[in-house]
């Protein structure tokens, strides 16, 4: 197999919609790669997802238009990608999103190509042609720097929402449709897929978005406002200890020591002062936004973004534009 000086990204196509992690990977590779950034897209004949991908400025998009393959299983997609590489040559790197699909297809393809694969990368950069891969292990308690010096492609899956995506116009963008990709049909699996409906607010420990209210938002009106904001954000509602005195909340809703430890992508604190009993439960939250009337509130030290002022007013404004 001939080696080609290109860096490939596998576009995740979920039932005719590109998963936004693909855009993030394009932006990241555009930033770090000297070689052309190529997106591999599998889609139905009638689809035109190249258009959405173009907006993020890759150098090239290779599209395999194939109705059956667009809903293919891991084995079939592995087969098709291996054949594509056989035709086109072996790229320097091949990046998959660390989604369920990416984490399932990439290792199969790795085994087929007998190369290395690093899972769930949080950072990537090049030293010459060598891709330096930063991968967490032990539940993100340890970071490893991993390389694949001898084998090509250097394969990784990269975690969603770690890199940000930026739209970019690439005047030299090339789009190539390939039609003669062979793959072996797998008769063993019959797959029925359904779009996942927005999940309803659940257990705060697992929730991706949490709206939390504290002593400073204790009135019925405050709570009503928070509930309505949470609904709009598809968030779960959490409380600090004093609010568990109300009939509406129990220890299952309480965040912090003697309550629950949470790890949402987004936490919005309304009227919470930030006592250690509370903040010890939120240290794994990714983005923390806090609203408090006291400009010296402790909670601001634990926040990425804060607003000094009335929590109810802010919640209302936020809800209005969501």
């Amino acid at each position, binding site marked *: 197999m001939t080696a080609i000086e290109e860096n490939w990204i596998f576009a995740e196509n979920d039932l005719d919609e590109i998963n936004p992690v693909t855009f993030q990977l394009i932006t990241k590779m555009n930033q770090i790669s000297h070689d052309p950034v190529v997106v591999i897209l599998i889609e139905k004949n009638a689809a035109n997802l190249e258009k959405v991908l173009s907006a993020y400025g890759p150098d090239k998009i290779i599209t395999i238009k194939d109705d059956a393959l667009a809903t293919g299983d891991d084995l079939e997609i592995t087969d098709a990608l291996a054949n594509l590489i056989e035709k086109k040559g072996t790229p320097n790197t091949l990046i998959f999103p660390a989604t369920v699909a990416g984490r399932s297809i990439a*290792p199969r393809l790795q085994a087929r190509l007998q190369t290395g694969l690093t899972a769930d990368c949080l950072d990537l950069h090049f030293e010459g042609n060598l891709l330096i891969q930063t991968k967490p292990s032990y539940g993100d308690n340890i970071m490893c720097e991993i390389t694949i010096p001898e084998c090509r492609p250097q394969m990784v899956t990269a975690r969603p929402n770690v890199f940000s995506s930026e739209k970019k116009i690439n005047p030299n963008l090339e789009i190539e449709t390939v039609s003669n990709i062979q793959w072996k049909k797998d008769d063993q699996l019959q797959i029925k897929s359904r779009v996942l409906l927005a999940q309803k607010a659940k257990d705060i420990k697992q929730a991706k978005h949490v709206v939390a209210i504290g002593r400073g938002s204790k009135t019925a009106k405050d709570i009503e406002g928070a509930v309505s904001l949470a609904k709009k954000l598809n968030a779960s509602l959490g409380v600090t200890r004093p609010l568990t005195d109300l009939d509406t909340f129990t220890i299952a809703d309480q965040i912090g020591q003697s309550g629950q430890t949470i790890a949402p992508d987004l936490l919005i604190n309304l009227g919470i002062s930030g006592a250690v009993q509370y903040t010890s439960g939120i240290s794994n939250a990714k983005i923390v936004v806090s609203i408090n009337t006291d400009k010296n509130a402790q909670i601001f030290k634990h926040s990425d973004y804060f607003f000094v002022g009335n929590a109810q007013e802010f919640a209302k404004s936020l809800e209005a534009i969501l």
Partner: protein
Amino acid sequence: MKIVVGIKQVPETTNVKINEKTKNIDRRGLGGVINSYDLHALQAALAIRNQVGGEVITLSMGPDDFAVSLQETLALGADKAVLLSDRAFAGADTLATAYVLSEAIKKVGQVDLVLVGQQSVDADTGQVGPIIAEMLKVPQVTYADKIDAFKDHLVIDRKLENMEQTITAKLPILLTATDKANRPKYTNVVEIAKSFDKPIITWHAGDLDLDEKRVGQAGSPTIVRSISEPQKVAKKNHRLSNDPATAARELVDILKQKNILTEDK
């Protein structure tokens, strides 16, 4: 149904630190346990066996002290266990590990179903299962949340980020199980002693048909250059504008850029 379940022994906590002298992970005083996802895989295998009959064989590659975990699987109800232990296997990454495991599964022979956990809690890769499937040339269903067994096929529910699937699968197949697949039972205290009546077989490199270039460190394309503890990123403490409407708009823009909120749906 003949079922093989892959078992990995991992440290009892993932809350580990790096030893400043050795620059390696400090495992002092840390006991081992069976990787929690593998317990879900084992429980699924036992339930399938109890429903449609057959045998459950647990399989682990590692040093001799991994035998404790295999003994534990016997106490939990597995019928027999195989330990793959050899100095030649040391230093293996996921590719070399899966190679030895897949060769062992071939040696077991006539296997209908391979079950592993969705990932290990120490390395966190989730790669070994799919690589084994590829090497055995069988299809796979990863991240199985629910598994129903029938005489000659399985029905599996799984979730991806934006969709859910129901899959009817013929055998042979490899599945990886999530922690939603079932509630693993606790080891029954009295069964521990009885489990010693069941066999643990040890296979060394010589017992398998292996290409030595694909084993251990030699067969591992990935190299760990260095390890470190993550830097706690200090919170930004960015103050939003004083006007609530403006502040809310600023926040929404930031959250969209970070993909926390999806673009206009």
